[in-house]
C-alpha cells in the first residue's frame, strides 16, 4: 500500500514513515500541500495523511483542491491535527476527509485505518 504524508513537521514525517515501514507499507513524505497535490497527480496513492495547519496551503485547502483536480484519482484523506478541536473535526469531515486524527497517535490507530483501507472501506472524496 502506498501512503502519502504531508506535514511540515519533520518529526511527524519521520515517525509516520517508520510506523508505516514497520507495517510493511510504502510512505512518501512532503512538507507542503503543493508538493502533495503534485505527488497525487503523478503517482497512485492508497491514502493521504495531511496535517491541517501548514504554511501556504492547509489540510482543508488541500482536500478541496484535490477534489477539484480532474486528472487525479480520488484518494482517502486523513486529516491530522495538534488540537483536538470539534470544530476542526467537523470542518474536515464536511470538506470530505475520510478520517480525523488527533496528535499524538501511534501504531494502533494507524493499524486500524490501514486495515479499513485494505478492506476498501474508504473511498476517495
Amino acid at each position, binding site marked *: 500500500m502506498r501512503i502519502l504524508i504531508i506535514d511540515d513537521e519533520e518529526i511527524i514525517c519521520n*515517525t509516520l514513515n517508520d510506523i508505516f515501514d514497520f507495517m510493511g507499507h510504502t510512505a512518501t513524505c512532503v512538507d507542503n500541500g503543493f508538493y502533495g497535490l503534485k505527488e497525487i497527480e503523478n503517482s497512485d496513492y492508497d491514502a493521504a495523511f495531511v496535517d491541517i495547519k501548514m504554511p501556504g496551503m492547509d489540510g482543508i485547502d488541500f482536500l478541496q483542491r484535490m477534489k477539484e483536480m480532474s486528472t487525479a484519482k480520488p484518494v482517502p484523506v486523513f486529516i491530522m491535527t495538534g488540537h483536538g478541536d470539534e470544530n476542526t473535526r467537523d470542518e474536515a469531515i464536511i470538506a470530505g476527509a475520510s478520517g480525523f486524527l488527533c496528535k499524538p497517535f501511534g501504531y494502533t490507530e494507524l493499524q486500524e485505518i490501514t486495515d479499513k483501507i485494505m478492506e476498501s472501506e474508504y473511498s476517495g472524496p
Partner: protein
Amino acid sequence: MHLRVPPWLTIMSKPLMSILAVCLILLVYMGFLLTTNYKNQVALHQSCLKTFKLDMGKRGASIEYFFSERKYDLVHLASSHEISGYFMNKSFGMSENYGLKLSFFLIKKLLKNIILSKLIHGREIYKRFMMVDNNGHCLVDTFGGHIDYHNFFYKKFLSDNQKTPEIFVKKINGKLEIMMAVPCFYKNKLSGELVAILNLSSFAINFINFPHSFSTEGFELITRDGKYLYGNYGKISDFAYKFRFNIPVEKRLTKKTLPGLLSVHEYSKILVAVQPIDNAPLDLIGWIDKNLVLGSFEPWKLFAVTGIIAIIILVSLGIIIRINIENMILQTRFNEAEKQHKLITEKNRQLKSEIIKRYKAEKDLEEQRTLRIRSDRLRSLGEMAAGMAHELNQPLMGVRGMSELILLGINKKDSISLEKIQRHAKIIMEQSDRMVHIIKHVRLFAREAGSIEKSIEDLNEVVNSGMSLLQAQFKSHGIALEISFSPTPVFVFINPFSLEEVILNLLGNARDAVEEKKKISVKLDYTPVVSISTWYSNGDKAMAYLEIKDNGTGISKDISPKIFDPFFTTKASDKGTGLGLSITKSIIEEFNGEITLNSKEGKGSIFTINFPIYIMEKTYKGNKCIEDINN
C-alpha cells in the same frame, strides 16, 4: 436694576444712625434751649432794668411827695394866726421889745411845736425854723435865741416876686443843708419870710436808708449842681468809690444829657440811674452792681459756651462716627474675608470630595484595567498554552511513535535491528529534550511575566526565544516567518520576558492581519509573510532596532493614531481586549524605548521598536557581566 449705594452708607449700621439722629435732635433741642434762654435772659435783663427804674421812680416820687407836704406845712404856718397876729400887731405899731414879744413867743412856741410834732420814724423832720422880715432881719429863730452864737447870716432867701414856697440848698457853717423858704403876706403885702432847715439825716433815713426793695447797691442825694448831700453806699465797693469820686459832675447831671425822669448809665460794671426830684433842686442817684443783678453771665457768653460745647460734642461725635465707620469697614472686610474663607473652604471641600471621587474612579478604572490586563494576560497565556499544546504534541507524537515501534519490534523478535532501536531512541531523546526546552520556557515565562526587573540582554537572543514560541504556530498556520538578525549581538537593558511578551503580541497581531487578508484575498497566490529583524546604529546615540513586518491587511490612517490607546481594538470582543498594544507600548517605554507604526492599508504594517543600546559588543567583552551570561 441694581441700585448702587455709596460704600460708606452701606456700612452705617442702624445703631449708629440712631445715635446720629439722637445727637442731631439733642443739638436742635440745645439750640432751642439756648435761644429761649437768651430771650429769657434778655427779658430778665430788661425787667431788671425796669424794676430798677421803677424803684428809683418810686423813691423819687416819695421824695417829691415829702417835699410837697413840707411846702404845705410851710404855707400853712405862714398863714397861721400867730404869724398873721404878729404882722397885725406890728401894723398896729407895737414895739418890738414890748408889744410884739408875745407874738414872737407864740410864733416860736408854734414852730417849736412843729419841730417836735413833725416826726418821721421818731426823728424830727425839721431842724430849725427862722423868720425874717422884709429887710432880712431875724424875727424868730427856733435855735436858742442867741442869734450871734451861730453866726448865721440872716437874709431874705426869696425874691420879692416869689409867692410860693421854695426849696434850696445852702451851705451853713460849712455844711450843706436843705432849706425851705416861704413868703409871709399880710393883707396881700409881702411882710416877711419863713425859713426852715430840714433835718437831712432823718430825711435820708426815711428815703435813702430805707430798706432796699431791689438789690440796689447804693444811693446818693446830690444837688442839681452836683454837690454831695448825703449818700448810702450799702456795701461800699471800689466801683462805688470810683463812681463817687471819679465821675465828673457834668456826666451825673443827667437832665441835660438825658431828658426824662430816669436814665440809666453804665459805668464799667455799675449800672447808674439818676432820678431828678421835680419840686426840689435835687437829684437822686442810685446804682447797682450789674453782676449782682443780672449775673456775671451775659447772654452772648451762654451762646459762646454752648456753641463751644456743641462744637466739642459735634467733633467728638464726628470722631466717634469716624472710628465707628472705620470699625465697620474693618468689620465688613473681616466679614468679607470670612465669607471668602468659607467659600474657599467649601470649594476645597468640594475639590477634596471630587479628588476622592476621582481617586476612587481612577482606582476602579485601575482595578478594571488590572482585571482586563490580567484577563488579557490570561487570554494570551491561553493562546500560548494552546500553541504550547500544539508545540508539545509534535515531539510527543515522535516520542510515542518511536517508543511504540521499539516495543513492537522487540515483541516481534528479530524484526527490529539494534541499529533501528538506537535511531528510534535517539529521536525519542531529541524530542524529549525539545519538550523539556518548551516546558522550561513556559515555566520561565509564567514566573517572570509581569516582572520588570531589567538586565542586560542580547536583543537577538530574546527575539529568538520569544519567536520560537510561535514559530510552530506560524508554520502550522501557513505563515512564512522571515528572520534577519544583526550580525553581532546587541545588548540592551531590558526585561527579557516582557520583551518576549511584546514580541508574542506583535507577532500575534501580524498573524491575525495576514490571516485576515488571506480570508478576503481574491488572488490565490497570496503568501502571508511575517518578517522579524534586528539591527543597530552606531554613533553617539547608538540605538538598537527591532522590526516586525507583515504583508497583512494593514491599518487605516483613521485608526492608526488610536491603536496604542488602551482597550482600542478592531477585533471581535472574544478575540482581544484591546490592551495588547497599550501594554506593549508601556513595556517599551519602561525600557526607555519607542514604538512606531508605519502602515499602509491593504499592504501591511511595520512596527519598529528602538532601544538605547546599553553596551556595545566590544566594550561588553571587557565587562564582568559577560562571564555571568556565559556561565
